């Protein structure tokens, strides 16, 4: 997969806008009940708003003219009651709508997050973390206004526009046609603006995402940046990204800001046509003065919701790209998923078999990382994998835990094809330790417990003691309650590794994989940990990738991996006697 960096725009599948819009509004359908209540209330409040001018008119034309003070006061009191109803209705409506929109955002964000959890490493490896983050937080938030406005503005405005148009057509269809002649111009104009603007907003979102990706990367690597005095370089890159972001925004608004003016122009033209055609072509006598008067009011009633609709459309175009980016992820299919009818893997015995396994990364299918690898590991055996970096050692262990899928051949555990068992039952029975042991911000206790969520305090301490972490934890002022921050302030890399060990220890795995897990631990600590590891290894099938001979030597069998296959296999003594690759490797340590 091509790797996307912070400075390059992401690629995105082109989808029909209509589909995205419909799909977005489909989330609102989960709240049919609330939305129907909102619509009913709105029917009431709109009626009150419509009545208000009539009441005013009556007050002036009847009460004032007839000098009826009492009637005037009564009318005022009546209006007051209506307004109070309006107030109550608005409050209920706003509350329901706030609930609906926030719930929809909650749901979309949850769905997105849940989906991301199912995706395979390829997805995460091919783009910066910050860009994924931008979609979960920023893009979801930008749907808020569109969702709530679509119910509270779009629907009443549409109804008003349609009603006014119908009334005008009934009253005098020729005059109505004259007044509405400019509508197609508006529609074409809006469409033309929208097609350009949509693309530009897409670029803008991508630039925003680049910015986010870069900030995330910069902050994660702040140590390297300061250490290399590279602040000026990163500053230049960031400023460049901000400038690109700025430019993409200006490009977009340059066109987007003409939504309003376009409505103004068509409105002006509409007025011109109405009076010109009405007076000059149809003739006043054929229309009637009353109708003209009425039409001048209708025109105003017609164009102001049109203006709102254009605004809404503008907002929709701005934010639809956010929805596209969200659905883009939701539509990304997980490469590695449970097969249909996948079974739970029963408690592990620990037999592992590779049958004719070949592997290549999907972006470079011709470059085989492993080719036709075969082996059977008996339960409880400890296997050490050695060989030059990049030879495929890590790939072998990644295939066992099904982080990647072989392009050919089968991996069997206890005779079960791992493709046929659930990922959860497979991985939760494996203890996998890698070089980069990620700790979560939280207490040390919580981090160890991550290995088994229902572990008791005793089990946690037991595990920590077994891997010699207990000693240093107790030296910390707050012991197991010490909070680890993201950058693990106060803990050395070795100490972090010990915590990761304890975490694996507590999970009591059936198969253990140590991928250079002890490389950052000093010899003294390793000796201590070794006892813990030995305890962990007994009775468990284990795979160890390491460079230190002291670690390798003890393995039951050693596989020398090179050029995508097992070159030599056997115990330490056997391999030395062979005087082959292992022998040379061994020799290099003393030369």
């Amino acid at each position, binding site marked *: 997969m091509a*790797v996307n*960096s912070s400075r390059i725009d992401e690629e995105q599948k082109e989808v029909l806008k209509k589909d995205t819009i419909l799909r977005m509004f489909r989330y609102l359908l989960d709240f049919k009940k609330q939305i129907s209540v909102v619509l009913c209330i709105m029917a009431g409040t709109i009626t009150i708003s419509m009545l208000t001018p009539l009441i*005013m008119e009556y*007050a002036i034309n009847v009460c*004032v003219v007839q000098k009826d003070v009492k009637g005037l006061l009564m009318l005022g009191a009546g209006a007051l009651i209506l*307004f*109070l109803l309006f107030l109550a209705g608005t*409050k209920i409506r706003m*509350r329901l709508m*706030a609930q609906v929109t*926030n719930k929809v955002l909650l749901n979309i*964000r*949850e769905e997105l997050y849940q989906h991301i*959890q199912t995706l395979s490493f390829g997805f995460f*490896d*091919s783009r910066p*973390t910050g860009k994924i*983050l931008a979609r979960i*937080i920023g893009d979801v938030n930008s749907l808020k206004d569109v969702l709530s406005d679509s119910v509270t503005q779009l629907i009443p405005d549409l109804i008003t526009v349609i009603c006014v148009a119908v009334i005008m057509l009934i009253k005098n269809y020729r005059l109505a046609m004259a007044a509405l002649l400019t509508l197609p111009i508006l529609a074409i104009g809006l469409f033309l603006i929208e097609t350009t603007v949509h693309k530009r907003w897409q670029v803008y979102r991508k630039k925003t995402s680049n910015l986010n*990706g870069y*900030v995330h990367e*910069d902050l994660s690597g*702040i*140590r*390297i940046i300061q250490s*290399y*005095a*590279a*602040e000026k*370089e990163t*500053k230049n890159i*960031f400023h460049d990204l*901000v400038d690109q972001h700025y430019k993409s925004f200006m490009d977009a*608004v340059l066109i987007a800001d*003409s939504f309003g*003016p376009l409505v*103004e*122009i068509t409105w*002006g033209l509409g007025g011109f046509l109405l009076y010109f055609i009405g007076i000059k072509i149809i003739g*006043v006598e054929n229309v009637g003065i009353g109708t003209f*008067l009425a039409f001048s009011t209708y025109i105003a009633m017609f164009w102001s919701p049109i203006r709102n609709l254009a605004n809404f459309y503008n907002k929709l175009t701005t934010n639809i790209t956010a929805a596209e980016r969200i659905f883009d992820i939701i539509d990304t299919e997980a490469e590695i998923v449970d097969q249909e009818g996948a079974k739970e893997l029963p408690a592990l015995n620990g037999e592992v078999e590779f049958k004719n396994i070949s592997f290549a990364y999907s972006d470079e299918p011709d470059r085989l990382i492993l080719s036709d690898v075969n082996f059977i590991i008996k339960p409880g055996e400890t296997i050490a994998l050695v060989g*030059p970096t990049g030879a495929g050692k*890590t790939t072998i262990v990644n295939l066992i835990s099904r982080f990647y899928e072989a392009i050919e051949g089968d991996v069997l555990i206890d005779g079960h094809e791992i493709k046929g068992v659930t990922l*959860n039952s497979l991985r939760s029975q494996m203890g996998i330790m*890698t070089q*980069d042991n990620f700790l*979560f911000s939280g207490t040390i206790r919580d981090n160890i417990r991550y290995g088994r*969520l229902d572990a008791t305090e005793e089990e946690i301490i037991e595990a920590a003691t077994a891997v010699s972490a207990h000693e240093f934890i107790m030296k910390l002022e707050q012991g197991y309650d010490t909070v680890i*921050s993201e950058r693990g302030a*106060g803990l*050395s*890399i070795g*100490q972090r590794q*010990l915590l990761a060990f304890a975490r694996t220890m507590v999970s009591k795995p059936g198969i253990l994989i140590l991928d250079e897990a002890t*490389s*950052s631990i000093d*010899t003294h600590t390793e000796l201590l940990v070794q006892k813990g590891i030995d305890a962990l290894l007994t009775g468990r099938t284990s795979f160890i990738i390491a460079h230190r001979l002291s670690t390798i*030597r003890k393995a039951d069998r050693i596989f020398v991996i090179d050029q995508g296959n097992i070159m030599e296999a056997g115990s330490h003594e056997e391999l030395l006697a062979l005087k082959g690759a292992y022998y040379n*490797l061994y020799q290099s340590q*003393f030369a």
Partner: protein
Amino acid sequence: MKNLWKYLKKYRFLYVLAIAAMFISVFLDAMSPQITRHIIDDVIVGGNMKILMNLLLALIGIGFGRAIFQYTKEFIFDYAAAGIGSGLRKDLFDHIQTLSMDYFDDHNTGELMARIKDDAERIWNAFGFVGMLVLECTIHTVIVIICMYRISPILTLLPLAIMPLIAWYALKMEKGLGEVYDNISEQTAELNTVAQENLAGVRTVKAFAREKHEISKFKKHNKKYYDLNMQQAKLLIRYQPNISFLSKILMISVIVIGGILVIYEKMTIGELGAFSEYANNIIWPMEMVGWLSNDLAAAVASNKKIKAIMNEKPVIKDVENPVWPETIKGDLVFNHVSFELDGKRILEDIDFTLKKGKTLGIMGVTGSGKSSIVNLIQRFYDVTDGTILLDGVDVKELPLSLLRGQISVVMQDVFLFSDSISENIKTGNKDATEWEMVQQASISAEAHSFISKLSEQYDTVIGERGVGLSGGQKQRISIARAIAKESPVLILDDSTSALDMETEREIETHLSKLTHSSKIIIAHRISAVRNADEILILSDGKIIERGTHDQLMKKRGQYYKTYQVQYGEEEIKWQSIQAE
């Protein structure tokens, strides 16, 4: 808001221009109904056809005029706001980069990201469409009030009486929302952090099959975020409809009281009609007050957070008159250095001299303070006691950029940027690093051979943190990055741990040829330090043994014991194999 003036200043004339366009636009808006009235009264009712064409052209003219001025106004506001927002973002980023390590120890990436992204955006909005609408509402209201006053000064008392009430509501709402926005902004940062950790630690999550746990953790924070947003909505609901209620009350009281005034002949019916039309016109700006103060409250809350970061002073910074030596040779001296962090003693009385071109090896158990020595040399932290001298100058006297520019460190925790391999190797000296140097450094770091095998070789873009590469490959690139800088001091902090013995030895041979650099090698493996000119053994922050490999072997202390563990049995066996 004083801190924002700096950005605003540049655009003040443009803002004046935009406001002028706004005035014209409002004026034209008021003209339009007048024209229509003329068409109806004079042409249709009065039958005066001669003026029809002029009136109609005026109608189109007004449409175009409004379009032009509206566009001018909107575009200028967008332009200025984008400039202000971008400027603020740049400064914020630049400032964060100058902060010291201890600040980053306490603040999560997710949180700082939220500041640079979301908070800067709220301020951007405040200077853009939010600010524009505030001004528009104000101008509109003022014009309408003036027109009202000219019709009936007494009746104008009504809007003048109601407006303070509206202002009071708006202020109360702003204050309440400000607090909620503080919380929302914090919760955004939290949500960011949870998601960011999940993404960064995706390998751990999947290794433990903890997806469900992660989802429920996220759900909890997402729910909290929802609750806060509902809290914000409820505050909005408490005040905003009341404001629009007040504007309706204004309308009806104008009619009732105005009507009574007409009945008592203090005012004509025509005047009342015009007045009530104006009152109608003042409703929308008043209703807008509610959500405008909502957005302004958000911007104010965000500005507070940004200000807090901008006020943060880096603990470690250049002295006032730093020393600028012309060249740095690379003589490094630790003069009885002690170091405390958070009241805990990390290093005690560390004393050594490293002459130009020589190599110092450091070993010690996990947590013995090895990496702290590196941190002190680069001044990520300052010493508590003693001094560190580079070419005889206290490192505190040197400018930070110069100091760090003279020292290349290969860190334990490899960090690579999502960029091409060659750009990664050039880090820290992008402009000056020649292509030959990149290649030369890669050869020395034993990275050239695997890089050449990649599909795009040195132009291959690697993922964030170097995902896609094996641990050993990442380490080799980071070693190449350090070598490419050709600095007088080169530090390798346990940075060959993921390499096989053979590669490590090759790299070591290459390094020993770099006679222009003083080298510090921190390692767990004897093989990495055995050829050093001096080896220090650290324990609990103190030097417990020191000497060359041979001297230390003779001492039969900690070093000897470590050697025994790593090689002892092996070497004996090896000799026996050789003997066979």
